[in-house]
């Protein structure tokens, strides 16, 4: 049932208003951070308040602007959008705390701009989560691109400018060059850009040319470059020049999840599993993203810089989500979608840890962190838990993903051996690049001549969010139903 609900609008406007207020409060840092915190809590509250209605099988909608027939700015909350909205808004609360500790700990400049853009990025992310049609999604997708540019270029030096330039070039070129024509052709073909109301039918008329629809599918798959599919992944490692809270929230949650969320939304609600099966698009997509899963993991193995390793791990893990959906089986789709949440909690923990290590010990490279775990036990314990989730070991959340993905592969009629092999080898690779970090930190020898004198645990403002995120990863592993409710509602 469709219910018109203003809550959608309020939830969307909260971060926008928050960011405007933050800009005006630049002179009072405590008030400024207070406003950010308030905005994040209010937004989370509003989103949580929508959960009962959504789980009852309703679809909340709110129409903002009508531009042309079939082209409007309309918000929608269904089970699919709630997966992303709940996760992103909750992690924003943690990130507000964490970035306060980080930015103040390092005495970073332009903290007001940082906080304002942070809120604007969330505005875009929530807009994507709540979009009811391809145009609304495109609108907020572009807002995310533009508003995160100042965050990536935050340090305003040569390295950050070149990283940020790469970032914006990759994202806008693909959006304008691939998504825009795809959107226009879909509009010409169907007369509307509204998403379907289920995941099977899609919106294309039955007599649409198969070649054209296939081309549009490829444009959409590559057009959302935020999802980090190779060969369009290179912006992500470059964007790691940003301060770590940005890498954490944006490049583990908001930005990249906007990418995969959009990709999967379009796969399921524009093309639909029916069209994808009919045109045989699922298997090629699965193998295509499998390349990313494996190649990115192998590159991650070679990185000594912790953030770079995490970045390539993100590239690899994002493709799990698309892989799951591309399997087109119930369990596969469930595994892919639940990974949106599972990866978010684990990856934000890892980035939070990387930032905490940098703030307290000023270490960026894994080789320098040998033995550091004995000095910073809580941080590295959280790191270990999150690594387990990435690897997919029980009882952490990642296990649920791997289980569902393997189930999904087994439900397939053909090609399941290939997919299973890919999943297993990628798991081994995950172990290969994550386990040594924790092992060396706890059991390794300190590097010669290096003393960790004076280094202690990270400040509480950073430690609490990262511990909390790690604990939630465990809770989601033991009690996955919370996210699974939504996921099951999507697959029906």
């Amino acid at each position, binding site marked *: 049932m469709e219910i018109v609900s203003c809550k959608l609008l309020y939830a969307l406007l909260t971060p926008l208003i928050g960011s405007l207020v933050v800009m005006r409060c630049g002179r009072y840092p405590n008030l400024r951070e207070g406003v950010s915190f308030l905005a994040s809590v209010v937004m989370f509250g509003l989103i949580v308040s929508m959960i009962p209605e959504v789980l009852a099988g309703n679809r909340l909608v709110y129409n*903002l*602007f*009508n*531009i*042309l*027939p*079939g*082209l409007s*700015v309309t918000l929608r909350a269904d089970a699919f959008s709630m997966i992303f909205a709940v996760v992103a808004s909750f992690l924003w609360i943690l990130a507000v705390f964490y970035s306060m500790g980080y930015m103040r700990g390092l005495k970073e400049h332009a903290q007001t701009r940082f906080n304002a853009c942070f809120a604007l990025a969330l505005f875009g992310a929530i807009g994507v989560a709540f979009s009811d049609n391809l*145009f609304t999604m*495109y*609108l907020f997708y*572009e807002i995310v691109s*533009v508003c995160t*540019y*100042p965050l990536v*270029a935050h340090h*305003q030096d040569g390295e950050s*400018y070149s990283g940020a*330039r790469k970032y*914006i*070039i990759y994202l*806008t*070129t693909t959006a*304008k*060059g691939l998504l*825009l*024509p795809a959107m*226009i*052709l879909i*509009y*010409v*073909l*169907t*007369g509307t850009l509204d998403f379907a109301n289920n995941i099977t039918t899609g919106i294309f*008329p039955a007599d649409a040319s198969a070649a054209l629809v296939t081309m549009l599918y490829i444009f959409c798959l590559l057009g959302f470059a935020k999802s980090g599919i190779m060969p369009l992944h290179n912006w992500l490692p470059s964007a790691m020049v940003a301060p770590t809270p940005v890498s954490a929230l944006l490049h583990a949650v908001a930005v990249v999840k906007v990418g995969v969320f959009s990709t999967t939304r379009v796969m399921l609600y524009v093309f639909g599993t029916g069209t994808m099966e009919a045109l045989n698009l699922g298997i090629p997509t699965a193998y295509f993203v499998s390349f990313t899963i494996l190649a990115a993991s192998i590159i991650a193995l070679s990185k000594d810089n912790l953030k770079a390793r995490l970045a390539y791990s993100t590239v690899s893990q994002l493709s799990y989500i698309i892989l799951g959906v591309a399997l087109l089986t119930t369990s596969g789709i469930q595994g892919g979608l639940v990974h949106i949440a599972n990866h978010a909690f684990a990856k934000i923990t890892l980035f939070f840890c990387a930032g905490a290590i940098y703030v307290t010990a000023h270490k960026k490279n894994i080789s320098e962190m040998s033995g550091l775990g004995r000095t910073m036990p809580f941080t590295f314990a959280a790191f270990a838990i999150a690594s387990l989730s990435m690897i997919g070991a029980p009882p952490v959340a990642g296990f649920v993903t791997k289980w569902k993905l393997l189930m999904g592969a087994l439900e397939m009629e053909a090609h399941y051996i290939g997919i299973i092999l890919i999943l297993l080898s990628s798991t081994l690779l995950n172990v290969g690049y994550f386990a040594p970090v924790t092992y060396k930190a706890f059991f390794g020898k300190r590097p010669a001549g290096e003393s960790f004198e004076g280094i202690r645990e990270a400040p509480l403002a950073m430690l609490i969010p990262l511990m909390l995120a790690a604990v939630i990863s465990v809770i989601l592993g033991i009690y996955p139903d919370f996210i699974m409710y939504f996921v099951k509602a999507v697959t029906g």
Partner: protein
Amino acid sequence: MDDVLIIKDGVMPFLSILIFLPLAGVLGLFLIDSDLFAKIWTLLVTLAAALCSLPLYFGFDLATAKYQFAEHHAWIPAWNINYTLGVDGISLLLVLMTTLIMPLCVLGSWSYIQKRVREFMACLLIMETSMIGVFVALDFVLFYILWEAMLIPMYLMIAIWGGPRKVYASIKFFLYTLAGSVLLLVAIIALYLRNGSFFIPAMMGQEYTYLFQVLVFLAFFLAFAIKVPMFPFHTWLPAAHVEAPTAGSVILASILLKMGTYGFLRFCLPITPAATIAFVPYILWLSVAGILYGGFTALAQQDMKKLIAYSSVGHMGFVTLGIFVLNKIGIEGAILQMINHGVTTGALFLCVGMIYERTHSRELADAAGVGKFMPWYVTFLAFFSLSSLAFPGTNSFVGEFMILVGGFTKYKVIAACAIPGAVLAAAYMLRMLQKVVWGGTDNPSHAGLVDLNVRECLTLAPLLIFVFWIGLSPEPFIEVMHASVNHLLVQVNGAVVEAPVAMARLMLP
């Protein structure tokens, strides 16, 4: 004549008022000898004209394609020349945009023009008279006189108040446009000899021979293509823009360029339909060339005004693309994009003018990094730049979207070739924005710069409102076009163009 004109007795002759009010304002300027009062007077006159143009919108009948608010008086009966005015869905928005832009031009020149202020204001008012006249004239002689009359004040604005190379730029501008209009005159006379009348609507829908149509079309095309300017007739534009004072650039970009595309719609399509259809592929490819050429050239510019000038070449390429795909959504998108370009590019030129007043340089490198000290300025600049690159939610997106929908409906390959132009627009605009807002850490300090004052904010704010109004709720702007565009397509094709099933649903009123 009554079958195309709607002349209502007892209604104020709004179009004549719009034409003669600024002219009367010029007379008023003779009586004022203070620069400040001259500016205030001009502002009041242009505001009064803007108010007088509002009834055109609110009294506009959406259901008819006839010319409304029409006036018809004999002028030179011996040659059947009349004073005939009227607006339809194609010209209405252009008239309204003209009256909107003019007060902003006065505000934008407030402190920019320091010498011969009264003369400058007089030029602005004469421009307004002739520009409105061009859009509403329905008699070819009247049209041609006003068309030529525009050149003189524009020439003076560049030649007197322009930059260092003002003589070169103004003469180039004059010669180029004059060269085009000579052929226009030939075409007008040829049409008169066939019809015995200068009444423009009477020339439409006549059975001309194919050769005659082709010759008339080519004469029209050259005149209007220079004005648009279409690639490869664009070289006068960057020179004129760079040297012109702010108000001159704004008028040039926002209104004068639209006369070319307006000419295509008003004359080429309905008077010479067979020739139009024959030339469509060439013009479409020329449009694509303009889109790409303008984009690439803009990307290489160091001078902000040149950058925006070349971006205009690209944007106007989209407009001609939309016009010549000859379907409803394409043409409506093109008309909307004409308005959008006027709003957005006008605003961008105003922005450049504001920075020029402060740093006395239009170089991107010198403007780099002003963002830190002029937050309001960069806020405006950011929104207008995003609008210029067709960011979703802004006006240009809607126009470009409609044009490309029209393009992809009929000519998929050509439309696909225009897509890189959209990418380039993002590249050059974001490059400029990045430099101005962020760049220049090695620049001499801009700390002495003052942010926008109230007058400057008031100059930009109305345009910003239109950026989002058209971007988010374009229906009030599009609905006035439907009847006239349908009629135009009937004139060109004999019937509304063929359309796929889905598009047919969209095209229902």
